[in-house]
């Protein structure tokens, strides 16, 4: 009969559901944290049970990034919200050239969410973090009433160390630079859309959700003078290139024929009236590279499992209008604009 922090009845991971009391700061909450979060994400910093994690970092520049994840459905071919939340933030760190160190994870859970699903998601998160060599060192759990959330939202924040001499930023693209894409586009978005019942189509496409920091390390080792990196997530390749063009005050000229698109991605886009250039990716990157280093860059990328499909898709050009322009496979020319008409909600 001790004053135990957790109740004696174990969490029912098979049939149990998250209740408001799991977010109320009492015993039920600490039971949830112990029974799911600490169990899977097990590491000494998290285990301390403080409201913050303290650790030493190598001196130098740090990167910090955050992303909320609200993807629907929560589980999809090639991943789930847990792995996605790890990959997404690692990737945003990696795009700054940083070696990811630690993540935090904030969960906002809807009352009634199945504990079994939460358990699966956190296990997947732990696996993704482990595989990427990062740790979830601190976290937070909130529970909102039924109808005030949607299953679970996960906001991950990461910090990483930027090696000496690396200087990546979206405003560094210069006319003449090469534009490199690490592989085929649109797979994450199509995999998610295919899971949406009401769209009524089925594919074998899997999300490309992956942690890109290893690929980035390889690339920076080969070409330390890389200008910019960015992952074409929400808004797809089109948004990514337009953002970079705007930040750098340049235009871009790309070739449709050089952009790999999986046939099922292309077919799904035709069915839905979408453009693969606007579809989200979660394991691809765009690199802007001095023209004379692109061969070395591509060679390094091709040697990495996540860069085998890398290719140069175009060049940075001078353009006061900051347009991204594309030579179509058909032989014409067109602008590649931000998506504005269609809506693809809750893709990440």
């Amino acid at each position, binding site marked *: 009969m001790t004053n135990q922090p957790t109740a004696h009845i174990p969490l029912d991971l098979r049939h149990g559901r998250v209740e408001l009391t799991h977010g109320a700061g009492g015993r039920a909450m600490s039971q949830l944290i112990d029974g799911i979060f600490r169990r899977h994400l097990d590491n000494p910093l998290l285990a301390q049970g403080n409201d913050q994690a303290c650790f030493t970092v190598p001196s130098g520049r740090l990167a910090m990034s955050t992303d909320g994840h609200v993807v629907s459905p929560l589980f999809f071919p090639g991943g789930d919200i847990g792995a996605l939340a790890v990959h997404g933030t690692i990737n945003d760190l990696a795009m700054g050239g940083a070696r990811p160190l630690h993540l935090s994870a904030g969960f906002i859970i809807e009352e009634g969410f199945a504990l079994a699903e939460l358990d699966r998601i956190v296990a997947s998160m732990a696996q993704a973090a482990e595989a990427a060599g990062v740790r979830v060192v601190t976290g937070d759990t909130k529970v909102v009433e039924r109808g005030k959330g949607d299953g679970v939202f996960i906001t991950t924040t990461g910090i990483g160390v930027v090696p000496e001499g690396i200087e990546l930023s979206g405003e560094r693209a210069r006319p003449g630079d090469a534009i490199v894409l690490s592989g085929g586009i649109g797979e994450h978005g199509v995999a998610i859309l295919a899971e949406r019942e009401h769209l*009524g189509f089925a594919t074998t496409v899997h999300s490309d959700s992956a942690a890109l920091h290893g690929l980035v390390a390889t690339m920076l080792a080969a070409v330390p003078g890389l200008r910019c990196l960015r992952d074409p997530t929400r808004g797809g390749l089109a948004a990514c290139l337009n953002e970079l063009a705007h930040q750098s005050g340049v235009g871009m000229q790309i070739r449709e024929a050089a952009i790999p698109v999986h046939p*099922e991605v292309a*077919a*799904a886009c035709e*069915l839905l009236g979408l453009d693969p250039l606007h579809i989200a990716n979660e394991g691809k990157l765009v690199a802007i590279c001095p023209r004379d280093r692109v061969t070395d860059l591509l060679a390094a990328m091709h040697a990495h499992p996540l860069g085998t499909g890398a290719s140069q898709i175009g060049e940075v050009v001078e353009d006061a209008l900051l347009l991204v322009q594309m030579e179509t496979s058909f032989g014409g020319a067109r602008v590649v604009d931000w998506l504005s008409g269609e809506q693809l909600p809750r893709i990440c």
Partner: protein
Amino acid sequence: MCLAIPARITAIDHASDTAEVTLDGVARSVSLALLDSAEVGDYVLIHVGYALNRIDPEEAERTLETIREAGLLAAPGDAP
């Protein structure tokens, strides 16, 4: 708005008058309510979940042939 795309019928469910179609590996189910008849293997034009019409393979080939000729001959008068 008039977006329609050809897909191949892979299965027909006569009870519900629907078909499974495939477009390069992407599958979906469509209503056959607007067609007099359809068979597995047919290509149909898909629009807002309905098959609008069948694609005529011979006409398609003839059209392509004409395009190829127009290109090759590059001379006036070779109308389709």
